């Protein structure tokens, strides 16, 4: 895959009186085309500053950032051509209609007049605002304005989208709609960097995350890799139709792969010797081997005569990851 965003040692220092404030401290990041990167961090951690640097709106103090091969400092115009930036707080021009608003930005992006109508119709359809084409911008709800801003961001068909807290202030329905829209954009092959505090929703569509605190990227990578990093193990749930005791015994005898075995989703043995142990149920194992070794565990169970109905890794909650890596400190 093509590397489309490459950030190395990015720093931003503000001078407040005689003091220096390190808003961003040596951030490294590499994203491939089609990645959806969730940028997570407490308020004031440096997310917006980083996004503004990538959007060419702020010069970095040190480090480099390349987007589609263009340097954000030395080639800002080329970068602006390939990115779409949606700030955390944004306004829309009042006194103009939705299509006029988009037409203005289409003209600003030098899209020929003959092509503008078609493009405006396309982005309106994508953001589900076709019905509002002739409405005045000020009459739109917050969620619609958010979608309109996203439509504006898409008007020049950018390769990379920088979305700063796009879901903030939206009601649950609007958030769901936004999530669906981001999934559609992902399907279109856009690379998206999205910052948000709504972690469970990000978990659904981000394939990579980065956690930033006090200006430092404390962790970045694929969600499950990071989860494994936290716990040193991956949890796997195994639903057994028959042969639960055999499975338990077998798993306990695999210390090179299995760290712990727990019963879940059923009553555990109550210690009464007259009660026969249950033959079916679900086990949660702490797996510490390599990812390809999971198959070996499953094969061993099947070969031992255990009837396995389901075998799947447990996804780690992004909130767990966030809480594990952050201390609630700002830059």
């Amino acid at each position, binding site marked *: 895959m093509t590397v489309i965003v490459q950030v190395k040692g990015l720093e931003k220092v503000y001078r407040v009186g005689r003091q220096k404030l390190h808003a961003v401290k040596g951030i490294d990041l590499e994203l491939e085309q089609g990645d959806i990167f969730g940028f997570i961090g407490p308020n004031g951690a440096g997310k917006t500053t980083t996004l503004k640097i990538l959007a060419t709106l702020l010069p970095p103090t040190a480090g480099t950032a390349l987007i589609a091969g263009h340097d954000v400092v030395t080639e800002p115009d080329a970068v602006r051509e390939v990115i779409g930036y949606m700030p955390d707080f944004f306004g829309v021009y009042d006194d103009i209609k939705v299509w006029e608003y988009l037409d203005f930005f289409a003209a*600003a992006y030098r899209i020929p007049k003959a092509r503008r109508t078609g493009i405006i119709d396309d982005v309106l359809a994508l953001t589900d605002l076709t019905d509002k084409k002739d409405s005045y911008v000020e009459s739109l709800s917050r969620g619609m304005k958010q979608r309109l801003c996203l439509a504006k961001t898409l008007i020049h068909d950018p390769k990379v989208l920088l979305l700063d807290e796009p879901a903030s202030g939206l009601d649950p329905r609007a958030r769901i709609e936004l999530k669906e829209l981001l999934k559609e954009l992902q399907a279109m092959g856009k690379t998206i960097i999205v910052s948000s505090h709504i972690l469970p929703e990000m978990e659904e569509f981000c394939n990579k995350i980065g956690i930033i605190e006090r200006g430092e990227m404390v962790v970045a990578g694929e969600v499950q890799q990071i989860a494994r990093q936290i716990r040193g193990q991956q949890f796997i749930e195994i639903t057994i139709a028959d042969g639960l005791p055999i499975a338990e015994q077998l798993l306990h005898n695999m210390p090179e792969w299995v760290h712990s075995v727990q019963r879940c989703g059923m009553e555990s043995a109550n210690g009464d010797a007259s009660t026969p142990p249950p033959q079916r149920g679900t086990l949660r194992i702490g797996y510490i081997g390599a990812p390809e070794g999971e198959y070996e565990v499953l094969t061993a169970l099947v070969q031992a005569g255990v009837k396995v109905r389901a075998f799947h890794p447990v996804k780690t909650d992004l909130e767990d990851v966030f809480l594990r890596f952050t201390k609630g400190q700002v830059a």
Partner: protein
Amino acid sequence: MLENPIFLREMRIRLPKHRGARIGILIMVSVFLIAVYLRMINELIQRAGANNSDADLLWDILVWAQFVFVLFAAPAYASNAFSREKEQQTWDLLLMTPLTASEIVLGKLLGRLTVFLLPIVIILPLEILIALVLGYYANGMFFLTLFTLLIFTFFFVSLSLYASWSLSRTLYAQIVSYTVLIGVLSIGTALLTAAALALSNISSGTSSSTLEQPWLWLNPFYLFSLLFEQPRDHLYQLGIGLLIYLIVGLLMIYHIIYNLRRHRE
């Protein structure tokens, strides 16, 4: 410039929203102007050659009204050009577009100027008629007056734009614009002139001419009044004053473009 999206948006926002309303206003203004013009032509033809004092008075009223309108309306109208973008958080969105600094600034400038030039253009046919009666074409007064109005409009709008660029709030930009235009240039220079004259009189014991005071050459009211002076012996002061205003206005616009370009690079 007609393709400049900033200019087109400024025009779109400033004009009435509904097409019906636009046409209605256009028809009403046209009917009113035609009626006024017909009446004026009739009056002027009757009086031409006999007594020009009415035409002269009307000329003075129209021209002064335009000047005062621009002076007082420019800060109110043009001081939000940049600060409003920042207030309503559209500035970053604008900076992200490939529009150049010159396109953004000149689009704003021409958008605002056009609105001020519209009343001048509407009244222009009437002024042409009066100038014909008064013979202002022959002595160049018509064009000098028009040129003076244009330079002042440019300066007032440029100053308001500069205040809007320099300050983050529209209210502050308006206050600064009014303070400079009314407080400093209109009242301040008059007070300085009075003070300088008083000091000069006290020290020399003789009275010196008001017209010798260079502070007054910056006073827009004084400069504009030179257009109506008879005989027109001090028009050179108007020329110098207008040149200063033009250069300062151009410098302010250039400074905004330069800073915006640096900011975006």
